[in-house]
């Protein structure tokens, strides 16, 4: 019974899983899907699949007659009833009807009736062009020149900076790190869930196989349990790093192939945003914001504090995983087959599930009472604190992080101890329906 044996166990648990076809498939499929989704959403934001030819039904004709189209959108303003226009839409290559009702100047609302759902970008472009058209017609009626009006308008953007101490350059913040935090939080949820269930399955396998008795005549049950937990956890980390690396590589390659040219164009435009915007055509300005946004995305990705995020991820993944997989190992030892696990797995994983569900509201209010409490309680902290850390924790609140980490470590040590005591009895018990009371008795047994 040596430390050497623990290594043998870890190695077996790790290698048998990593060599499985399902692991290899998941390792490749996961990043393909993630990079695919990223690239696809990027591509969608830049590329409109088809040109929009819009039939404008103007109840106040010829009020909107001078409406001009823009990038890949053309308008034809008509004086006809909506019903007639609908017939026309059906019979023609118009992509949509833009209905501007007679009370539009008061209600400031119109309708878009489409054949195929246009992108948000198109919708926003239509909204803006109608809004501007109406604004300009109004200022003309007030005898204000368009140039004066543009000078009146004061577009304002807010860049936010995290104070890093006097004399040090403040860091610009953005929503992106917190989105990455949310993604990491969800990954922690997924990984804890997936891999702690694997620990449980492994324990059940050894028990139902009846190989357990041979093994524990060579090693202590606690060694076997810890070897399994560590081995499976290492599989989880391997999977995570493969995912991250492959996703980054695939995304880098993909964005060069799919959106490469636009990306280059975007970075040139960066300089031009400094230029006074009045002279520009409205639709061009729109285009520009779009592109400079995408450019910012890359800058923002670069600005994320990856060492901190990865450190927090590792800590909270491992802490949460040890906590939950110890409980799952105990469950696996207490039952005779997979179907008996339900009564235990549901209550055990409930806090985890709750944290996952709440993660979205924590994302909206990361400093609220709920978020703070859930980030301190060990059963939910791995997910919730991950999200809070991504938002950045004020130095005055750092005690919460320390408390959360300390509690997580203490809880998993206690839980591993309890699980070990249940495990060493459970693995040799067959045909006995384990109740919670029974499990409590096992903890007190002298083996």
């Amino acid at each position: 019974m040596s430390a050497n044996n623990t290594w043998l166990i870890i190695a077996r648990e790790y290698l048998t899983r990593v060599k499985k076809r399902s692991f290899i498939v998941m390792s490749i499929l996961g990043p393909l899907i993630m990079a695919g989704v990223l690239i696809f959403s990027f591509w969608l934001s830049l590329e409109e699949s088809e040109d929009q030819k819009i039939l404008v039904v103007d109840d106040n004709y010829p009020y909107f007659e001078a409406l001009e189209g823009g990038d890949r959108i053309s308008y034809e303003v008509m004086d006809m009833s909506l019903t007639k226009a609908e017939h026309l839409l059906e019979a023609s290559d118009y992509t949509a009807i833009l209905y501007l009702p007679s009370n539009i100047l008061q209600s400031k609302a119109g309708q878009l009736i489409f054949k195929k759902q246009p992108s948000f970008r198109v919708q926003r472009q239509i909204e803006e062009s109608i809004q501007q058209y109406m604004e300009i017609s109004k200022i003309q009626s007030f005898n204000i020149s368009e140039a004066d009006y543009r000078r009146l308008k004061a577009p304002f953007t807010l860049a936010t900076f995290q104070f890093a101490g006097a004399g040090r350059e403040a860091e610009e913040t953005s929503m992106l790190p917190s989105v990455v935090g949310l993604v990491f939080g969800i990954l922690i949820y997924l990984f804890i869930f997936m891999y702690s269930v694997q620990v449980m399955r492994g324990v059940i396998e050894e028990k139902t196989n009846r190989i357990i008795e041979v093994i524990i005549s060579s090693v202590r049950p606690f060694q076997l349990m810890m070897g399994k937990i560590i081995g499976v956890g290492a599989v989880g980390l391997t999977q995570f790093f493969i995912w991250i690396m492959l996703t980054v590589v695939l995304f880098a390659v993909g964005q060069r192939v799919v959106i490469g040219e636009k990306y280059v164009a975007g970075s040139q435009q960066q300089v031009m945003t400094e230029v006074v915007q009045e002279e520009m055509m409205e639709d061009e300005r729109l285009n520009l914001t779009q592109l400079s946004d995408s450019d910012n995305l890359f800058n923002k990705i670069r600005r994320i504090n990856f060492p901190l995020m990865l450190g927090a991820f590792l800590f909270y993944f491992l802490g949460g995983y040890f906590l939950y997989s110890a409980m799952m190992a105990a469950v696996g030892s207490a039952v005779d087959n997979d179907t008996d696990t339900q009564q235990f797995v549901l209550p055990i994983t409930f806090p985890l599930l709750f944290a996952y569900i709440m993660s979205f509201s924590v994302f909206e209010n990361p400093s609220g009472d709920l978020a703070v409490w859930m980030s301190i309680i060990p059963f939910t902290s791995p997910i919730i604190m991950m999200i809070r850390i991504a938002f950045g924790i004020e130095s005055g609140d750092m005690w919460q992080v320390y408390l959360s980490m300390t509690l997580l470590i203490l809880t998993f040590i206690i839980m591993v101890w309890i699980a070990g005591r249940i495990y060493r009895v459970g693995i040799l018990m067959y045909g006995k329906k384990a109740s919670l009371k029974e499990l409590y008795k096992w903890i007190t047994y002298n083996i």
Partner: protein
Amino acid sequence: MPEHQHILSIDGVSKRFGNFEALKHVSFNIPAEEIFGLLGPNGAGKTTLIRTITQITAPDEGAITFKGKGLHSNHTQYFGYLPEERGLYRKMKVWDQAMYLVRLKGLEKHEAAQRLKEWFERLSMTEWVNKSVEDLSKGMQQKLQFVIAVANDPKVLILDEPFSGFDPVNTELIKQEILRIKDQGTTIIFSTHNMSSVEELCDSIALLNKGEKVIDGTVEDVKSTFRKSLYEVRFKGSKMAFANLLGYRFEIIDFQEGSVVSNAVVKAHDGATGNQLVQLITSGLELVSFQEKIPSMHDIFIDLVHEEPTTTAEE
């Protein structure tokens, strides 16, 4: 005699689970380099006792000494164990699995490989090494399990119902291997319900019932303790003539008259001996054969436990 006459001493071992007393102050010694039978009906405490010897559980009271020293976790490398409920990882390759389990016993990689290679060759298992366990027949799996139990060259090999589920050919093969291992100096603890294999293999036994040791000792001693002074006699002559010769200290229990040779079972009373019986018979009749009727282990088992020993493993 080896340096320690007893390789294992079980000294006042008790074990309880909740309210259930699995073992009650069990004491006996296991002589070195012998095959030792651990007998008893289901639920007698055999498996619990084996688990304390293999250090899967620790006794609540009492102690077990190995070569005169208290059992220590370092000792597991000297033990080989084939449990009654046995299994293997179904998806793992035969060789990987055997290597893993043998190395857990503390063997270095090359040593484990060397030993396994020898065993695989001896039991003609070499062509399975790359198979998954799930592709092996039940008999093949049992052979593999046996090899895994013995490959670390244990000082003490514990076999819990080793023949349950074996086909006759494999049973014979494994019996020969057990005897060979014994000759090489391994002590074998052999737990079974099968009394005929006890007669065949065991040198000494201990019988457990309801957590208590009922009897222990060499098979010979146990049997002689349960001698009932019964003799089987074959002779030429009539029942009448035979009965007249015996006198008051011998009683005919059973008699089968034959045309020439008759059989009788005679019980001796008041300390009368077999010698005296022979003298009495030969004084008037021709004695064909004479034999003391020794009880079988099966009879002793039933006598002590008041239960039929089963030949299959249930539990």
